[in-house]
């Protein structure tokens, strides 16, 4: 179909892409929302600071914003000496919680991805497993915490079990849905061009399902983080959840708020990372949504 004159779009020439001209409108379109967010947050913390200093609320419940940031900064830049109970060692506890979280997430992926793919690909496996998956997925996981404490005590194993259980279901369900919704025409095309069953999985179903799996992991991270904090609040002697519990016990409100702040930051960073990952592995999906 080598018609030059009548083709809808000209073939690529070197001048097909040009750099956008600098203009304020363009600059604002790209960076404006960041700018507004920074001003917005600055105002929020200034108001908080003023409000806390006015003495309307006891510092036991609401620390000043500057106090919270100071605690956070000190806690992240200093490492606690071994054996010290809490003061100023947020970094250690953060590291501990993240280790448990990532171990749990890794296990959840190792179990959840193949399980979801198998359920999507095999009627028998799907029929047998789906009642259990739905039952466990709909059960509030906190309800299981006392049971696991009974089984395993206040151990890392208990905490990781809770994280795995929190994170594995969104991963399974998303992977399963990805396989199920794989476009029929893509499967037909691959078959017409000679794909066997294994090729269909490897070259069509899996790449199609990959972005689903990533959004499953994204949900898994959110749930897993809740799992970590809950497991640590219930029991244990390390981690951000434990730190919150300690801060409450010792009326250390600036530590409490510093840890909450840190949880927000960690959670947002992880979620943004998976969003970026999703857009990176599946740019076509992002464009479809626009």
């Amino acid at each position, binding site marked *: *179909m*080598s*018609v*030059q004159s*009548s*083709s*809808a*779009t000209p*073939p*690529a*020439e070197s001048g097909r892409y040009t750099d956008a001209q600098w203009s304020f409108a363009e600059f604002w379109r790209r960076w404006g929302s960041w700018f507004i967010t920074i001003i917005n947050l600055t105002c929020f913390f200034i108001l908080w600071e003023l409000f806390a200093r006015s003495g309307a609320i006891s510092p036991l419940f609401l620390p000043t914003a500057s106090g919270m940031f100071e605690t956070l900064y000190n806690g992240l830049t200093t490492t606690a000496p071994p054996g010290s109970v809490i003061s100023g060692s947020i970094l250690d506890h953060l590291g501990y919680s993240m280790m448990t979280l990532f171990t749990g997430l890794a296990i959840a992926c190792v179990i959840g991805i193949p399980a979801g793919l198998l359920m999507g690909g095999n009627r028998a496996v799907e029929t047998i497993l789906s009642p259990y998956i739905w039952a466990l997925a709909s059960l509030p996981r906190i309800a299981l915490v006392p049971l696991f404490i009974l089984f395993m005590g206040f151990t890392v194993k208990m905490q990781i079990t809770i994280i795995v259980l929190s994170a594995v279901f969104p991963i399974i369900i998303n992977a399963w849905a990805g396989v199920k919704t794989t*476009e029929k*025409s*893509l499967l*037909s*095309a*691959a*078959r*017409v*061009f*000679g*794909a066997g069953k294994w*090729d269909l999985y490897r*070259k*069509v179903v899996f*790449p*199609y399902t990959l972005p689903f799996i990533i959004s499953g992991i994204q949900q898994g991270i959110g749930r897993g983080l809740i799992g970590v904090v809950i497991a640590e609040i219930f029991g244990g002697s390390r981690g951000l959840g434990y730190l919150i519990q300690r801060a409450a016990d010792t009326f250390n409100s600036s530590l409490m708020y510093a840890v909450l702040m840190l949880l927000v930051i960690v959670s947002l960073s992880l979620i943004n990372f998976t969003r970026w990952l999703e857009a990176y*592995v*599946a*740019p*076509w999906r992002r*464009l*479809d949504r626009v």
Partner: protein
Amino acid sequence: MALAKTLSAAEPGAHSAAAQPVIVANNLTIGYSLHRERKLLTALKNITLTVNKGEFVVLVGPSGCGKTTFINAIAGIVQPWEGTVEVNGQPVTGPGPDRAMVFQDYALMPWRTVESNIRMPFELKNLGLSKQEMDERVHRYLKLVDLNGFEKSFPYELSGGMKQRVGIARALVTEPDILLADEPFAAIDAMTREAMQSELERFVTQTRQTVVFITHSIDEAVMLGDRVVVISYRPGQIKEIVPVNLPRPRFDYDVKALPEYGELREHIWRLVKDEALQAARGGK
């Protein structure tokens, strides 16, 4: 209607002197089981059709009459209930490198670049080509469909017409004997469509590839087909086979100005309209 009578009397393939059958469908009946309604649906019934080497056969008929089912049976991805399809004398048991398909919704892998999509048939089927031969073919067909410069683009970055040209290149790259096309130009704008029809006609005339082509457009059917097969609604049966003896290449001769063109168009339109009305009333 005198013309129509004489035309419908003509035997399949009678216009070609040394007819060499490539696709033979014999008393083909195909259906689906509808799980939800606990019923069996007969999509196609008693289809007998012979397509000869180098022939361009167009299937028309109302939506849901079984055109896609028929072409899928030739491709080997749908199994018949009764009857057989033979390709080059062998009964079809599955897909093969002698057949390739162009899809209405392009069916390109969105995670693969243009080049990688066109190369995909080679990954799925070993045709005994060397790496150089494969590279050479991929680039030859990329060029043929006028997409050089877009090798590294992804399908979502292309217009509908360009996507379909990728689909065509992917089908041609294995150099199949038989090209199956399921409404390939239906989703493409009129200007691009005409250019692509004309190029397709020129290409398959040159290569003597056998084509089975589905369309909803009667103009497209008359412009491209050596024979137009009109299929009736539910169960899909061959209602009439209309030979189109217009000079080729048709886009160069301006056949649309010929009186025969108008008559054929009118005749096929009437046949399809009757069936479409049946379909709209909910079948027979």
